[in-house]
């Protein structure tokens, strides 16, 4: 774990630099796609802290994504918050929802955890429909935000370059944070919880507290993704809280490789293009996505990044 630290950080930094550089070469269409993928990647990284490292399978992460999105969208729409204030409100909302959710689910693991998270997320989804005077339901809220004022510069959110680089900064921060976290003593305990919780407890760790903390970090990162998604694309609606946004991060993580920091972002990218390409071929594109998922779980159970890592070692 020690000797390879420099190499691991170098690899992650290289990915970030590469994403910065390719923006000058990408055609407009892919430019927008990569922007979205980087935001999804933040969500995926957040999800992976829970599934990949702590071993908790959540089926309710739409809750945190939507908390971030609504936290930002509602304050911008109703109270006129600017982009930075709305982003902070989104992160704050996600943090709060994570803390409450954590307090409810922290005694559960395994199937019970899966069911409770699913239930809470569905309750939140239905609430966004029920309180449609505030949320405008599934029609959603379209935002028109003022530009970001930063160091005297004015950055309009409609500018694709602003979108791309804001997403890149968020992605870089999330990636490096998760990498640092998981290589810290704290991260080692999360892995121990995943591997053998009973043993970890008898090594002197309050494992429920570690699971709780992992959930809060995971939920807040997911909320950051949701808040930015809402602000950069100027929209938030009930669909952000729907089951789809709970299953997508699971799909990304399994596809890319759980427990590998770069796996879920890779999974997010592949899924995005898979849906993109298959939807241009057929309207029932989810069939192709499904086939791809089955194939990957059959032949690459470690995910693509996991497979690559193994292949490189062999």
């Amino acid at each position: 774990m020690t000797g390879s630290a420099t190499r691991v950080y170098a690899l992650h930094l290289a990915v970030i630099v590469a994403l910065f550089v390719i923006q000058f070469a990408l055609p407009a269409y892919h430019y927008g796609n990569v922007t979205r993928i980087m935001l999804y990647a933040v969500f995926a990284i957040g999800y992976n802290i829970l599934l990949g490292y702590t071993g908790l399978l959540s089926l309710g992460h739409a809750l945190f994504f939507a908390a971030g999105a609504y936290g930002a969208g509602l304050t911008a729409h109703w109270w006129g918050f600017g982009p930075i204030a709305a982003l902070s409100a989104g992160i704050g909302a996600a943090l709060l929802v994570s803390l409450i959710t954590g307090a409810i689910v922290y005694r559960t693991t395994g199937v019970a955890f899966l069911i409770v998270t699913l239930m809470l997320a569905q309750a939140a989804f239905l609430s966004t429909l029920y309180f449609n005077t505030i949320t405008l339901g599934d029609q959603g809220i379209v935002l028109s935000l003022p530009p970001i004022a930063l160091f005297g510069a004015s950055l309009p959110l409609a500018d694709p370059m602003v979108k791309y680089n804001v997403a890149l900064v968020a992605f870089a921060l999330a990636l490096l944070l998760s990498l640092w976290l998981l290589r810290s003593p704290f991260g080692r305990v999360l892995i121990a919880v995943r591997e053998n919780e009973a043993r970890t407890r008898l090594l002197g760790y309050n494992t429920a507290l570690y699971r709780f903390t992992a959930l809060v970090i995971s939920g807040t990162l997911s909320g950051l993704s949701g808040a930015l998604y809402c602000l950069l694309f100027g929209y938030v609606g009930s669909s952000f809280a729907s089951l789809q946004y709970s299953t997508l991060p699971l799909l990304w993580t399994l596809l890319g490789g759980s427990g590998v920091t770069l796996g879920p972002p890779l999974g997010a990218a592949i899924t995005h293009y898979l849906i993109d390409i298959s939807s241009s071929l057929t309207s029932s594109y989810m069939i192709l996505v499904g086939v791809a998922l089955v194939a990957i779980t059959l032949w690459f159970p470690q995910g693509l990044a996991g497979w690559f890592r193994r292949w490189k070692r062999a």
Partner: protein
Amino acid sequence: MTLLQTRNLTRHYGGVRAVNDVSFALERGEIRGVIGPNGAGKTTLVGMICGRVLPSAGSVQFDGADITRMQPWNRVARGIVYTFQITSVFKRLTCRDNVALAAQRHLTRTRGHRFALPQAMLDAAVDAALAAVGLTVEAERIAGELPYGHQRLLEIAMGLALKPSLLILDEPTQGLAPGDIVPFCDLIRKTAESTTILFIEHNLKVVLELADKVTVMDRGAILAEGTPAEIEQHPAVQQAYLGD
């Protein structure tokens, strides 16, 4: 000076009294062996000491404090460390990471540094624990690939890295090759210089050689207690172990 004292400790499972009204004291610095047939309640007794099992009645005092209902991780903080009967290392992690989990627990508690423990400090603690059990060369190996005897040693290294004041070993020599037993006893003796040891053991020879004092349990109760010489002569022990 008494380190550990149980009073009328009882645990029943349904109608079965696994441990029944056990009052038992452990002196600081001693090596105590616990013997008894299967089902005598040995593992349940130490389970109540380390917090894996909660008692139905009675109390446990450790180092002057009542720990009867304390959470297991807080007991570790107070110095009670348990190693499992069935080897329970993290099989997919390296030996170094296994020991680091224990070492960082002790270091973060005594020195802070929850998120950024200095690597050199951690490495030094891990190396020392691995060296103590003779596993230095295996440090980077995946724990699950080690032979069974070495996995047991790794368990001990994890225990040592927690700097226990009471180290509980549940059948430590079980599954060890006969040739590994003598070095293992040496290791325990060396460990006992800095900690109190309570161990459950089926191998009577090991118990008599290693323990300062032996507790004999049967059907949830203490049958006899004394020095190895006294215990060897005890009629009940003779009957149980020598088939008289």
